[in-house]
């Protein structure tokens, strides 16, 4: 027992192998995590779909009814009217959810507006809408 304790002839190769293994596992873990993070973002962005069911020009505001038709939750990050960002109430929609996105906007009658909604991942829905007379 005592002799075996003091015999250190095989210790170095074992240590080096273990260290190499730890380094390899750590490297692979980092690589796989990075892959997941990079492809995960791509995956989430690709899974976003939503439609504007209705656009309602109300007094001093425009209400847009959105439906999440995709496979990922969405958050409205920006709303543009004629390429100008507008203030709006925050909206989060899980898949298949729907709800109103209200924004304050003073519109004029019988005018065509280009309205664009952008999500936090960058997906956009844009179209032209004519205000009522």
């Amino acid at each position, binding site marked *: 027992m005592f002799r075996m304790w003091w015999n250190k002839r095989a210790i170095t190769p074992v240590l080096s192998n273990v260290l190499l293994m730890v380094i390899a596992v750590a490297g692979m873990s980092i690589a796989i995590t990075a892959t997941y993070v990079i492809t995960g973002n791509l995956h989430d962005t690709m899974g976003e779909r939503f*439609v504007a069911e*209705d656009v309602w020009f109300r007094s001093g505001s425009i*209400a847009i009814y959105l439906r999440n038709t995709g496979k990922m939750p969405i958050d409205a990050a920006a709303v543009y009217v004629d390429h100008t960002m507008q203030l709006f109430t925050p909206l989060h929609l899980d898949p298949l959810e729907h709800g109103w996105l209200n924004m304050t906007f003073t519109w004029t009658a019988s005018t065509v507006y280009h309205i664009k909604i952008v999500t936090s991942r960058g997906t956009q829905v844009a179209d032209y809408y004519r205000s009522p*007379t």
Partner: protein
Amino acid sequence: MRTIIGRQHSLIRNRRGLSNIIVVVLSFVILLVIVSNVILWSYQMNQLDWEKMEEAPNVSSVARMTRSSWFVTQSEYRVNKGGRTSGSFIDTQIVDGSYESFREASPPRELDINDTFSIDLAAFPQAYIQSVEIQLQYRVDDTGEKWFLKAFNWTSRTYSDSGFNSTIGHTPISGWNTYAVNLTGKWHSYVWNDGKVLVKVHDQGPDSTRTNIDINFLGVRAIINGTTLTIQNKGAYTAHLVSIWVNNSTVHKRYDADVFVNSGETFSYQLVDIPLPNGQYALKVVTERGNTAVYAAG
């Protein structure tokens, strides 16, 4: 054999290419993760887009629905005074040439019959019923006396016509007569919670003639303010309608929907809870995949 075993041993001992193999295998694993995560997901989303493109809902007509279908008796009439001479209750279910005949009793020469009618409250919930209508189509051989329609008042526990739009009865002419009464806003007293309505037909009272009456039709229906949509699915995929919008210049009103229309089918959708506005309006249906069909009216 010895040579083979010897080479196997030397291969196991020789580790010069092992790290390369491990790197390649692990890289392959990473590639596999990327492929499965991105390419397969992309395939799924492409399929979603493809399905959306292939879906083609169309609203071909929109009509105001003011009446439910008729609800007719499903059992034989109970004859309280007088007697049955021919036919059966089935002959009173639709307006056609067949009828059920009754005859007043020998003096005092009266007829009194009643039966149960059931309004389908699952299809026409009480909350959306505005009133109830009872209609009788009949023929008599004595036009000298009036005929009355009454319903069982569940509050007063008697047959009554209190609150009906007409309580004076109906004076027949020769040939077929149509007599209809509206229960107005008092219909709640005459319809039980399960939609049951008990209707009575009786004559004016004792007279000198023993009258024969032929009943061609007797039915009950609800008066409502709803909408009937006709939706066509011209696409290759089943359309799941999830929203119905009724928009006019002042109000945009959304209603939840849950209707599946098969590919190539036309579906008539009765909505008792959607009143149509007067004047110009647009009715929109939206599918779960995000397609919209619009019908402009007015």
